[in-house]
């Protein structure tokens, strides 16, 4: 390995000098050239999807073993709705939206329509771009059919009351306010900032304010 990007999080009962000397030991033991900022940027980018377009990637998977059926009977779909570059306000909006539709999605697509054994609605934040994912895994229906049911679900979403929205906001804030119980959790929280290239170690109060 010729080039490398080295990052470290040191937290706990340690002084700044102590943390720096730990990093120095690691850095010196790695014989590498530093990746340029440009290279690093290109390795962590995301394609911007044009507004009001749909892009489909479909693949038929063959069963590696088994007699009789040549096509894998399982299907899966992931519908990804790109939300644009991350701002605290937009991120808050998407998180509330995900929480609002999570339960109705599970109820409609999993319980009532029994489309598959996995039905998930998740919020995504990657390379400073936010999004919403709806995933279904099914042993019975094809991917186009699953998409059709997702479209139908979106089209028939109920109107959410102000009270429902307020409840979701309260529970999200509560989640953010949860006290960290161990140093591992604290480290992970800092590390997520490095992974996303945000370097915003005060992101929690800002996220709470945005919600």
């Amino acid at each position, binding site marked *: 390995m010729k080039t490398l990007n080295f990052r470290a999080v040191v937290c706990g009962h340690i002084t700044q000098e102590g943390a720096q000397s730990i990093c120095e030991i690691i850095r010196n033991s790695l014989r590498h050239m530093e990746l340029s900022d440009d290279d690093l940027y290109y390795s962590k980018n995301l394609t911007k999807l044009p507004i009001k377009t749909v892009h489909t990637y479909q693949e038929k998977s063959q069963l590696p073993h088994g007699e009789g059926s040549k*096509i894998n009977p399982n299907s899966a779909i992931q519908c990804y709705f790109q939300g644009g570059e991350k701002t605290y306000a937009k991120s808050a909006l998407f998180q509330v939206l995900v929480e609002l539709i999570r339960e109705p999605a599970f109820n409609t697509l999993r319980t009532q329509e029994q489309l598959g054994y996995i039905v998930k609605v998740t919020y995504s934040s990657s390379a400073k771009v936010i999004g919403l994912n709806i995933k279904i895994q099914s042993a*019975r229906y*094809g*991917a186009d*059919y699953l998409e059709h049911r997702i479209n139908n679900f979106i089209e028939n979403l109920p109107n959410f009351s102000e009270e429902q929205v307020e409840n979701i906001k309260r529970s999200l804030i509560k989640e953010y306010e949860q006290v960290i119980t161990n140093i591992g959790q604290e480290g992970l929280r800092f590390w997520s900032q490095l992974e996303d290239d945000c370097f915003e170690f005060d992101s929690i109060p800002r996220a709470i304010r945005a919600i």
Partner: protein
Amino acid sequence: MAKVSELLLNEAKRLNVKIHTPNPSEEAEKENAQAKQSNQAFYAKYAIEEAEIVDPKIFGMQNAKYPKRKNI
């Protein structure tokens, strides 16, 4: 004596319950093909264009603000 699976199958048929089979039946394939058309109608209704990404635009490339890291 009838097997439990047979009894359950008969009961399901009697109650007109949709039976989930693991293999993609012709019916499921047909259902899927019909769904494709429904999806296209859905896109048309909301003026969503089915497109391929031929000239990908990367987020933030116009005014990339990559933070300079301090070497420690």
